[in-house]
């Protein structure tokens, strides 16, 4: 303030400096957590053996990248992993329309307490960790679990059904767990968007004689589409990042072929297979593919819809 009154510095510079200080912590955080870890890519070029320090390890150049594609089986494993990743991501994207539908219908419920109850109950699973989800799944679906006991007790099956340790419909099972966990949470964004729609639109439509379904179809859904597309684009950028915790807790010898997505593969190879360098190499490739995918989608979006996110 003093300097201001002294008139030594122009007002706008001080203002922008102050604003800059405001975002500085976030820039630092962003740098620390998003850019600084990229330093770890250096491990991909060394023969890193955990008890030793990096300086004590041998520099091997592109060796690990070559190893990934060294022979048919390696490539085969990689292709299977990519297939799983793509399948689960595509299923995830295909079902990403469901939260929107859910939000639209939820919005139509007139009874306030019931609406709140449904919303709370569907949002809660999002806060349960995958480990706990698995223990619930374990109690329900293991050989001596509740579901099997119930079915056996009522004579509907002769032998326990292997829900967890079989490789049938792995993709679908995983998508369903994911949906159960994420549906309510995913709907929150759309509910907020619905609240932002101009009520005059509805009034005008009602005057014109539109019924509730016509209101939903002609007003709510079109108004939500921009939100939907932004979320869709973001999810495509995360195409390869379908997380590993869910698949990690559900994986076993029997379903590994289809459950092993890229992140889990990196973990299995790198952490349990004692090859951190190879795992780093894979995740580097992953980042490159992700960036390429995002840029492509962004370009397509710009061309077709005239909107872009970056």
């Amino acid at each position, binding site marked *: 303030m003093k300097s201001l009154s002294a008139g030594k510095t122009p007002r706008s510079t001080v203002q922008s400096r102050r604003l800059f200080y405001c975002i500085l912590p976030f820039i630092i955080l962003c740098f620390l957590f998003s850019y600084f870890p990229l330093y770890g890519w250096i491990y991909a070029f060394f023969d890193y053996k955990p008890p030793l320090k990096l300086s*004590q390890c041998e520099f091997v150049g592109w060796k690990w990248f070559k190893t990934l594609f060294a*022979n048919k089986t390696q490539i085969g494993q990689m292709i299977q992993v990519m297939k799983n990743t793509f399948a689960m991501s595509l299923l995830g994207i295909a079902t990403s329309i469901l939260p929107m539908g859910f939000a639209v219908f939820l919005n139509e419920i007139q009874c306030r307490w019931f609406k709140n109850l449904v919303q709370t109950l569907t949002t809660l699973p999002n806060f349960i960790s995958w480990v706990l989800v698995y223990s619930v799944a374990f109690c329900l679906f*293991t*050989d001596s679990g509740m579901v099997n006991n119930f079915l056996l007790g009522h004579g509907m099956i002769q032998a326990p059904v292997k829900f967890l340790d079989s490789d049938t419909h792995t993709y679908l099972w995983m998508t369903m767990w994911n949906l159960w966990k994420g549906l309510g949470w995913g709907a929150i964004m759309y509910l907020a968007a619905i609240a932002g729609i101009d009520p005059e639109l509805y009034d005008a439509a009602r005057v014109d004689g539109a019924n509730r379904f016509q209101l939903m179809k002609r007003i709510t859904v079109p108004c939500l589409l921009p939100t939907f597309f932004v979320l869709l684009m973001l999810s495509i950028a995360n195409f390869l990042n379908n997380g590993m915790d869910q698949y990690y807790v559900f994986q076993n010898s*029997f379903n590994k072929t289809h459950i092993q997505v890229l992140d889990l593969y990196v973990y299995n190879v790198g952490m349990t297979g004692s090859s951190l360098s190879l795992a780093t190499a894979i995740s580097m490739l992953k980042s490159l593919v992700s960036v390429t995918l995002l840029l492509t989608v962004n370009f397509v979006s710009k061309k077709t819809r005239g909107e872009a996110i970056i």
Partner: protein
Amino acid sequence: MRKKQISVILCAVLTVTAVLGGCKKEVSVENTTGNSSYDKLITVDVFDTLANYQGIQSGWFAKVVKDKFNMELNIIAPNVAGGGDTLFQTRSAAGNLGDLIITKTESGRFENMVKAGLLMDMAPLLKDKNVYKNYEDAILNMNKGLVKEGIYAIPSEISSQSPNVSADGIEPLVAPYLRWDGYKAIGYPEMKTLEDMIPVMKQLQEQIPKSDSGKKTYALSLFKDWDDSMMVMAKNYASLYGYQEIGFVMEKYDGRDFQNIVDSDSYYVKALHFLFNANQEGLIDPESTTQNYDILSDKYRDGQVLTSLWSWQGQSYYNTRERKEEGKGIMPAFIEDMAPYTDGCYSMGNGKAVIAIGSQAKEPERLAAFIDWMYSPEGMELVSQANGAAGPMGLTWEMKDEKAVYTDYGWKALPTNDVPVPEEWGGGSWKDGVSALNYKPLAMVDTDPITNEPYLTTMWSSVLQMNDTPLDTDWQKYAQGAKTTIELLKKKGALSVAPGTSYIQPKEESDITTLRGQCKAVIVDDSWKMVFAADEAEFDSALQHMQDTVGGLGYDRVLEVDLKNAKDLAAARKTALDEYNRRSN
């Protein structure tokens, strides 16, 4: 990024443990009147790759350690934490494995740990200690040829006996143990080959349909916690025929045969097929695929599992004195063509499992004193209780007429039963108070100077004499007078003693390690699929998949390394034997 996340999580976990440990500390300070000469109570982080329990050591063993050294053991067990080597890697990347380290050493791990500065040079600490004076040869042999001179680790199971004497005492590594009451009831059917066990197991399951608590019994129950290069529960059947694993090779005890485990006619694949057959007959517990070792142990304690290959699993958990009096218990049967594998004594110590002090340890002198104590007769009796030693003198055993005998309490509590411990000995349950370190400083079959008998209580003359329950006498009749499994096997000429050596697998190229990791995953996964295959065709296709996949990954290169190691090991066995003979002549 992931590494960072994991280390953050680990830090959080450590903080929580430390805080919780802190809470517990204060309580115990008030409650106990320790007579140790150490003023400050410390919590020692023990990184223990052998332990099957994670957390603070509790019960009577904790009290002993607290009274003597005023410290608490916080055991960090990769076996419990899961995820293979993850814990080792993240902790070693942080530069501090723990204060006390009990670890496996193979594949160059020991050398790398020394090179990375994770271990402390114990030479100055051990100079005047008995452990060094008594076992200098073994300790120096362990630490020779390292990048930095010094004493970084002490080998386990050091013995003064011939490498040709079984280090397992009375029970070999594996034997076909089964529920003797059931076997008796079905008239001791003869078993010529392993396959003959299937109808026997079937009859057993019909004979004993319910466990002691009324649950359904199964002849076999498996678990996956210890699967490494292969499925451990299948490998055991190959060990029944004198083979032991070294990487992907099964080596015969006498070094005359080396099998590639994925070969269709290897004992390993045969064992998988045996388990597959057993599963087809409904003999395998369906929970095998999901349960862990602890759940399985409780099933054994309750009698839900009718056969076992490890004496320390089936027999120790089920055979209590009361049950034996009733004629119930798990005893070994004899299969005519078997030749169970047993490790010989390690005259130079077993370098595959060692104890060391971490380079960041806070009070190394106290830790060195603790290690010294572990290698003393009294330490052996207490630390190795989990492996069959006697426990605290005065509580579980005493000297009567210059002979070591169990007390009444000992009969109830030993080896690891869920019996309450008197308050002055630490309270809690005996089973929970047993040392969780799972470490054998000296050979269990060596002589304890206090008792003049082996540390292994089951070899005590007074205990062997007491094997007079209906169960024992019935079995001894079957065994033609033999008192122990090893005696029976020796009598039948069916024991495969592999001479103990200090050989440890050398380090290997890291692309071999990577390939090995990938092959392991395929082998273990496909093995489980084979055992639980719906039919023969599925079994064959899983086997084919296993062979093709590992073959395609470059399995042959790994196998070459393993074969060389197996041959070196066989040579080392011969050398150890020659050397012992030369020294004793």
